[in-house]
């Protein structure tokens, strides 16, 4: 096992890159949307990984004594992972859902108007 969280960070990065590759190379609009989903997922994984500390637990206070005992609360800071990235990712996921939904809606309408899913057919406006 690796010393820290390289595995997750690296995986996140690679997923992002795969997502970008999909977006840039695939011609099908739906696949491009999937590419963006991959980018979102990779990003989320990477952000969570940023707050990951090997061997620690979820940031939930599971011992009532802590409330009374400030010292043990402080100990807790060494026992749990960073909760902030998790909170951020929660937000990011929802946003990702929203964007994906909109993209899909666009794809539906683009298909309806252009009768194709080839991204190259939607470049009439240029220059």
């Amino acid at each position, binding site marked *: 096992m690796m010393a*820290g*969280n*390289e595995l997750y*960070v*690296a995986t996140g*990065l*690679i997923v*992002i*890159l795969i997502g*970008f*590759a999909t977006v*840039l*190379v695939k011609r099908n609009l739906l696949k491009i949307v999937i590419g963006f989903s991959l980018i979102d997922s990779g990003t989320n994984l*990477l952000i969570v*990984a*940023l707050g*990951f*500390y*090997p061997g620690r637990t*979820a*940031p*939930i*206070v*599971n011992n*009532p004594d*802590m*409330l009374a005992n400030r010292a043990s*609360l*402080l100990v*807790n*800071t060494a026992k*749990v992972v*960073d*909760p*902030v990235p*998790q*909170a951020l990712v*929660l*937000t990011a*996921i*929802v*946003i990702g*859902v*929203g*964007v994906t*939904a*909109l993209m*899909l*809606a*666009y794809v*539906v*309408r683009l*298909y*309806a108007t252009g009768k194709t899913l080839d991204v190259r057919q939607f470049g009439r406006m240029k220059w």
Partner: protein
Amino acid sequence: MKQIISIIAIVTIGFVLWQLVPIAMPSGFGAVTHHYVADGLKDNGGSNLVTSIVVNYRGFDTLGEVTVLFLSVSGAAFVLRRRSGLEVQEPVPASEIVQTGARMLFAPIVVFGAYIFVHGHLTPGGGFQGGAVIASGVLLLLLANRDRALPHGLLSWVESLSGFGFVLAGLAGLIVAGSFLANKGVLPLGQWNRLVSAGVIPIIYILIGLKVGSELSVLLDVMVHAAGDEEAN
């Protein structure tokens, strides 16, 4: 040609971004995080620290997040507001077993979703997760029977009032404790690990759950009916 350039560019940028990996290595908490972890329980009375952050410390983000969802549902509905003009295949009705099963499962799923958002301040999960679970129940219904009409009026009321409630809860904080979305001092924080504790956090999370559930349901409805109906709005 462009694809080759794209691949080369992506590989190159992969190398550039690789520099970031060392930054991601575990390091100590910063002062802010330290405060969240050390004093989160004291400040908000909820044992789920992530929830404390999401609903209180960074509650303003969450309000924005709810707005994003609301907006994207509105947007999707807006984008899909016109008749698509596509040939719609007459859906093959699902079998009786599937339809019945879906109807049966729907209620437990909704209850489970409610459970998740009601306990958001205590256990993993929360309004978004719960809402998503509820919406998955709706999705099941829709998959089983495309023609099933959702109670638009009800969904609309829930959607609007829960969002409004969220803002009201924030304003309550402003009026009572002098700060928008404040928790401490608005309602008693209660005792650790009780369902009724953590001040307004569970209230807000319930509102979020309702809102997310109803909104995602509307979204699914819009998407499902995108291909034929007039004016999803």
